[in-house]
């Protein structure tokens, strides 16, 4: 369904993404890993058309995406929801209004400027919020919520778009471990229950391994790994991150269980 072919993005003389090729033939949960500046965000932003590609093509169900303009481009963006690291909600508007922003592409500009949405949409928004466990915050301002709650509002906005693909750019990078888990579980559930494709940039290996069906590794703008989470060994991870032998996954982990694991490793090392 989604096919990316030799996609390249240059900023001046710097190449952020170089000839990336990727094919997704059935709905799955795909994790993209790599260190900062590897081109993960640029790739997602090109898929959503927040940024234009320099070369190459993206096609979805046979339709070319990179050349869309105006109304068609905005229609594509509504089919392909985006979730950001810093949530990117409107802080001074209430939670339900933020979720209703997911319908902006379908509604007239004038009606939405006066915050006039159909009652059915409002009810649907609250149901989505309930599904994500934050319905009781519906009338509050978005800025009054914690980071994890705000990210769930962002996911609700994405779901309100009723998208075929959900792109998540470092969705848990600014969250604490507990909230990170809730958000990742929500994304996983959306994939499993609704059958939507989720593509997430992740910065920790264990998250990718735990929640994704398929993992892509990027280094310096190139895709250097594409495979199953099980194939993601420490050696492969070192290759992706360009790290030396001192690289330890547990050191960067945000999962709570890792604490125990690290503890266990230390104890084991003490015995050796």
């Amino acid at each position, binding site marked *: 369904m989604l096919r990316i072919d030799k996609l390249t993005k240059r900023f001046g003389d710097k190449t952020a993404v170089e000839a990336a090729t990727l094919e997704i033939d059935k709905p799955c949960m795909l994790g993209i890993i790599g260190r900062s500046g590897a081109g993960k965000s640029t790739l997602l932003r090109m898929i959503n058309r927040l940024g234009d590609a320099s070369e190459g093509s993206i096609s979805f169900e046979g339709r070319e995406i990179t050349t869309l303009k105006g109304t068609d481009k905005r229609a594509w963006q509504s089919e392909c929801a985006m979730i950001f690291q810093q949530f990117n909600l409107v802080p001074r508007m209430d939670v*339900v209004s933020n979720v209703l922003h997911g319908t902006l592409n379908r509604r007239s500009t004038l009606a939405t400027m006066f915050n006039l949405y159909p*009652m059915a949409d409002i009810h649907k928004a609250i149901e989505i919020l309930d599904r994500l466990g934050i*319905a009781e915050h*519906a009338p509050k301002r978005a800025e009054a919520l914690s980071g994890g709650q705000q990210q769930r509002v962002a996911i609700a906005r994405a779901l309100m778009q009723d998208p075929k693909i959900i792109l998540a750019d470092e969705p848990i990078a600014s969250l604490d471990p507990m909230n990170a888990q809730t958000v990742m579980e929500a994304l996983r559930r959306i994939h499993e229950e609704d059958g939507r494709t989720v593509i997430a940039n992740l910065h920790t290996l264990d998250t990718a391994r735990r929640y994704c069906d398929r993992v892509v590794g990027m280094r310096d703008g190139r895709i250097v790994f594409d495979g199953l989470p099980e194939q993601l060994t420490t050696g492969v991870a070192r290759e992706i991150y360009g790290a030396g032998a001192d690289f330890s996954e547990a050191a960067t982990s945000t999962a709570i269980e890792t604490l125990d694991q690290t503890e266990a490793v230390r104890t084991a090392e003490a015995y050796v």
Partner: protein
Amino acid sequence: MADLTAQAPGSVAEIKAQYADLTRRKRIYGGILLALFIALMVAGFRTADDRNAGSFADGYQRIFDYPAEVLSEAAEKAVELPAHVVHFFPALIETVNIAGAATLIGAIFGTLLSLLSTRGMAPWPALIPLFRRIMDICRAIPEIVIALVLIFLLGGGPVPAMIAIAIHTAGALGKLFSEVNENASLKPVEGLNSTGASWAQRMWLGVIPQVGPNYVSYALLRFEINIRASAILGFVGAGGIGYELKNSMSWGQGKYDEAAAIFILLFVTIVVVDQISGALRDRLTHGNRKGA
């Protein structure tokens, strides 16, 4: 706490109903406000139109008669335009000079007034209202009134105009600058305070670097406004391009080509100032490209 849980909505249906109520109430308020606004606009327009000598409905077609006449006359004598532009250029320089000097002096006093009237920075917090009222007074008196009084006292010329504009600028920029100051972090100021720095040192080294780009951006906007103000003051005898404009734009003198040349000069000046200030602001906020 018990009250809170009692009020807190339990089921999704309740949340839906409550939010729907909220939305309905907001929409009703919004509708009432909109109706009120339209009613006031219509009523106000009627009152204003009644008090006019003529009616807007009858007169509005004639609004464009004057520009049309100026343009057609200027087009007829288009050959003479470059000569007029050269002829009026010194007068334009005088006007820009008045505006520049007034902006500079006004910005200096505005900075001082703003620092004296910002909570957390003012050396005498009790006097903040006093400095605020001083700024209010500076803004309240129309610059044309100050200029007329000063021209009466000092005689015609650029200095009274400069002082008049500087006073207004100090009041206006002082208010804008103090709003900028409120958003500045007090942490660097505290840091400098801990080293035993004086108030002036704390402000100059701790606050100004933070607010500088914003100050410059407001001051440059003010400079543009002041060019126009200084041109207007020329009408009452303060010299500069305004005086020339007044002479050339009166009815029935056949000097509309000169007026057109002056309008072109003023327009070009504003464009140039806008471009320069944009470039300057960009450099201030993003730093020197060469990485100084």
